[in-house]
């Protein structure tokens, strides 16, 4: 190939755009969309991160029924969301993240029962807060199913990754990450308490927790 041809070919290649090889499939798209949804909602992400760090730091075996409690919470949460109940759960998730983050940062384990309760509450909150807008029918349930599997996978795998990290500097990084989760959550909770954050409006606050009263 001559140098002129090679230069022309390279320049043409530079102008190429993405090749989308797969067409969209509503069910597949909905499922995977739901699978990554917990990572795209900041409150869900912080809560999952803090709980993963907490469970991993403590050890999954010593965390007792925490992961099963999370599953027990998220399943009915997703079902309720599928049938139209969609309360604002961000504040609850930030509260759980704060508690878990403090435990991680201070390396002071929370009692098993409290941890399990926190996981159940977080699971239910993630489930209730995951219903996509303007999606109905099979796509809705595919999304919710993906969300459930995704949240459980992110939580358990994240905890397992933290647990297998044995090096001292990694353990310190875990505690630093816990302090970050705590700091972020505390700030937004302060905003909510003051009443300037639109996340939680009075008529949407979950009945069993109403810090304004």
């Amino acid at each position, binding site marked *: 190939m001559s*140098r*002129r041809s*090679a*230069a*022309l070919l*390279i*320049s043409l290649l*530079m*102008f190429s755009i993405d090749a989308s090889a797969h067409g969209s499939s509503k069910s597949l798209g909905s499922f995977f969309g739901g699978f990554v949804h917990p990572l*795209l909602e*900041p*409150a869900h992400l*912080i809560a999952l991160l803090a709980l993963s760090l907490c469970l991993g730091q403590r050890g999954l075996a010593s965390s007792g029924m925490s992961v099963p409690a999370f599953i027990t919470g998220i399943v009915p949460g997703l079902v309720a969301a599928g049938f139209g109940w969609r309360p604002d759960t*961000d504040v609850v998730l*930030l509260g759980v993240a704060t508690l878990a983050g*403090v435990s991680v*940062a201070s390396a002071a384990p929370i009692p098993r029962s409290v941890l399990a309760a926190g996981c159940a509450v977080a699971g239910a909150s993630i489930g209730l807060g995951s219903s996509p807008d303007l999606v109905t029918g099979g796509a809705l349930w595919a999304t919710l199913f993906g969300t459930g599997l995704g949240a459980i996978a992110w939580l358990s795998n994240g905890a397992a990754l933290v647990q297998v990290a044995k090096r001292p500097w990694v353990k*310190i990084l875990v*505690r*630093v990450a*816990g*302090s*970050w989760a*705590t*700091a*972020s959550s*505390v*700030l*937004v909770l*302060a*905003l909510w308490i*003051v009443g*300037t*954050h639109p*996340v939680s409006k009075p008529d949407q606050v979950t009945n069993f927790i109403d810090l304004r009263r």
Partner: protein
Amino acid sequence: MRIEHKTVVVGALALSTGAAFAHEGSGVAGGFTSGFLHPINGWDHIIAMVAVGLWGAFLGRPAIWVLPIVFPMVMAFGGAIGVTGFHIPGVETGIALSAVVLGAMIALAVRPPIWVAAVIVGSFAIFHGYAHGVELPQAADPIAYSLGFVIATGLLHLAGIAFGLLVRWPAGKVAVRACGTAISAAGVALLIGWVHV
């Protein structure tokens, strides 16, 4: 110029174009970006955060990890004060003073007990947190914003710690103390108004 050279130049120019941002940042991405950039857009924040990591590394264990853990949490407390609207006077002075004091601690190789170091760092964390917190209500997505600036702050600490690890070598100790002197001098310049951020 020969045709293939022209083609390559045109091709390279085409590659060097950046994305056209037709819309200002909004939503989660916009909130995270503005939060992340907030500490980085101010030299006063940068030098003070690097100084925290630097001093922690200089003091060694356990300060090297205690300070980066304590700082974000106390900073959140300061941020919460900022969110409530309660006015703390002299915030910018406090931020500049943090650079002066922390830089001086490093330059003079001061090694107080860990609790004293934590109290000093924590006191200044309130000012830094307050400065970030007052911006929080206006953020496109407050959760993403707070995550952004907490992560940026932590990464600045990490940069300070990484540089501070040079203390294991004699020349490194000199470099770290020189860096502390520079930070302190920059803080003085900010305090007296020679430099504005």
